[in-house]
């Protein structure tokens, strides 16, 4: 379970090992991509419509909600944390968008909904970073708490969204690409940039890799950890925006159990639950693997009950293959 075994210690004079290391790093990274490509090839044989442009567009749109959540989750998992509350926070933002749009314009609703999501993320962050509550517990509490908020806000009844412009935001296209997909890509690019090109991003890795070391090196660990949960919350709000605008309904049960899908996408994408290792690119690939699988199972008309079996097995097999290939 732990990552270091007594026999895995390398010897001095790393020169001799570097070639092999580069090799295994490559396999590790391309392993996920190869799995995706393999899945795509198999799928294209299973159903000849799979590779059609409209279907590929569908897949891209379908994965966007969980994909965006997974991007935010990547930050959290990189710090060795976990955020079980993203589905509920998504739910809060969805009902807020709907509720505010009843009387206000999009320009008011969107920032308010996302700010509220960030505020809930902030509570998570403060609890984890400063009150010393384990992330699993803090966000498990928030899972229940935020869902309660969404129900209370709506009184349990979905709020319809009749704003035409808002509907178009979620269902329209820009440059021929569905808007939700663009929002996913935008979130991904910004996140990837932040994680690889900014001091904050590298510090996120450092915190997950060795929190004490990061603190001793002068990284403001508490602040950054808090920010990470705020990001995860805010990104859940963005995901909620896609949800609400696509479906034009503010239902308080929006996003139930999505946290598990998001975590699965992150881990299948090669990010380690033990922190410090991973990337949002991997998360995108992981999201696509899960999305393509769901798509091809639907296209081939597999019984929904059996789909559950596949979904469960896939996660395990994907991670197993990755663990193997990165060890090789």
């Amino acid at each position: 379970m732990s990552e270091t075994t007594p026999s895995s210690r390398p010897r001095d004079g790393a020169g001799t090992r570097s070639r092999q290391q580069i090799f295994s790093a490559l396999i590790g990274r391309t392993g996920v991509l190869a799995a995706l490509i393999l899945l795509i090839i198999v799928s294209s044989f299973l159903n000849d419509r799979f590779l059609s442009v409209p279907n590929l567009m569908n897949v891209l749109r379908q994965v966007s909600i969980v994909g965006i959540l997974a991007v935010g989750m990547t930050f959290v998992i990189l710090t060795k944390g976990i955020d079980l509350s993203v589905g509920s926070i998504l739910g809060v933002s969805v009902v807020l968008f709907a509720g505010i749009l009843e009387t206000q314009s999009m320009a008011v609703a969107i920032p308010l909904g996302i700010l509220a999501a960030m505020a809930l993320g902030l509570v998570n962050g403060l609890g984890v970073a400063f009150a010393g509550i384990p992330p699993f517990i803090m966000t498990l509490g928030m899972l229940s708490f935020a869902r309660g908020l969404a129900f209370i806000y709506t009184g349990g009844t979905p709020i319809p969204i009749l704003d035409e412009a808002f509907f178009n935001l979620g269902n329209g296209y820009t440059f021929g690409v569905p808007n939700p997909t663009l929002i996913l890509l935008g979130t991904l690019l910004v996140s990837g940039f932040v994680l690889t090109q900014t001091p904050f991003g590298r510090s996120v890795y450092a915190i997950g890799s060795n929190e004490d070391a990061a603190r001793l090196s002068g990284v403001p660990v508490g602040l950054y950890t808090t920010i990470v949960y705020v990001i995860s919350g805010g990104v859940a709000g963005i995901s909620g925006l896609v949800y609400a605008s696509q479906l034009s309904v503010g239902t308080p049960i929006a996003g139930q159990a999505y946290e598990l899908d998001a975590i699965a996408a992150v881990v299948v994408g090669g990010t380690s639950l033990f922190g410090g290792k991973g990337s949002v690119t991997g998360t995108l690939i992981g999201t696509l693997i899960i999305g393509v699988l769901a798509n091809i199972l639907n296209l081939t008309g597999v019984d929904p009950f059996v789909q559950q079996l596949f979904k469960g097995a896939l996660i395990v097999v994907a991670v197993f293959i990755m663990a193997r290939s990165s060890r090789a």
Partner: protein
Amino acid sequence: MRGATMTDLLLDARGLTKRFGDNVVLRDVDLSVAPGEVHAIVGENGAGKSTLIKILGGVHRADGGSMRLEGREISLSSPQAALDHGIVVIHQELSLAPHLTTVENIFLGHFLRNAFGMLDHRRMRARTDELLKRLSIDIDPTIPVGRLSIAQQQMIEIAKAISVRAKLLILDEPTAVLDANRVDTLFELIGRLKSEGIGVVFISHHLEEIFRIADRVTVLRDGSRTGTEPVRDVDHDWLVSRMIGREFESYTSKQRQRGEVVLELEGLSSEGAFEAISLQVRAGEIVGLAGLIGAGRTEVAQAIFGVRKHSGGTMRLNGAAVRLSGPRAATRRGIAYVSEDRKAFGLLPNRPVRENMTISNLARFTSFGVLRLSRERAFVREQIEELDIRLSGMQATISTLSGGNQQKALLGRALAGRPKVLIFDEPTRGVDIGAKREIYRFIEDLAEEGAAILVISSEMEEVIRLSDRIIVMRSGRVAAELQRAEASEETIMRAATMA
């Protein structure tokens, strides 16, 4: 330095006091460092050295006392604040992020940015190459540091420390994991920093190092300062007496009776680690395994213990060839192994001392599938007495013990399996001088009782002191076998390093 005025001092800390709960770990301690001075701190395990350092580094806040830097009163609320004042600390526990590269670790907390505020990868890489060259570290700075050896990681910590412009550099036991060559490199570097007017605080349990590089030395005992003197005015015995509060009785080792060959390796090889290792250990004999770090000694021990597969050769126990499938099989055969890395492979950190000491052979305390707790307690009590482990009770969580006492508890664990062969890998790493002697005595007593013992150590003095015979390894091969009489630091070193 005694005549130095206040304003000449780089650091002037007075009356530092620190409590954890109602446990006072530092009591009214003064420490001053002048520019270009190397000030050593010595003391037993748990004397408060690291705590003092952590106060200076902004990790802990003192409960009392004051600190002045270059004459100005400072207050350090975080490691960041200390860094901002030019106080750079290398802590006792390695503090690198294993998944990050050398470049990233060196600049963690003070990344270089380009004009847009983004990471300036190129400039950081260039600076890193420069630093590594200066410290003669030959590694690829773009691989995760977790893949490097501990010694290499320690050197990277040093590189990281000097990458910032420090006024005061504090090193907490930096040499504990370094071999002689790297210690030399480090000391050269310290010499250079001295000449640049940087103040250095240096902690080590190796007292000879104090005499090599320190200008002044402060001794701590039980959280109080028991003396501060220029190094040239003091000697080894003075330090020891200040540290432990009494004179050290000299020790003479007894003659031991050697018996049959118990453990025998013949041409044992393991790919990438060692080749054609042959050695014998008799009952009642202590064999030292010396060599530089990375010579492959730990790997040999792991192979004997069944943790590492060996590709060629034979291992015999009491004359019969055996192939062990793992630690469990080894334990059953009466082999015990005390790892060099206490934290990673030894301690069950949040379990009581009692459980820590019996985990390796619970069968011994079990009848009809149920643990016999009274039998267990009796064993543990006996070991605590035997090893003179100082603790509040056998139910104390082991991580609350000092390093030396933790190590003793793990030695006690090795005995739970009633072993006939014991392998001690760096048995006194990070252990103070008092505890060290007790551990030596313990090992010797075991040998006297007829155990076959293999001691791996990077400390020449230690191997020479303990061993009946010394096997020197170099690059995974046996370089020399020295009888007690022929063994000296020089002969060992020559065998260990000769190309």
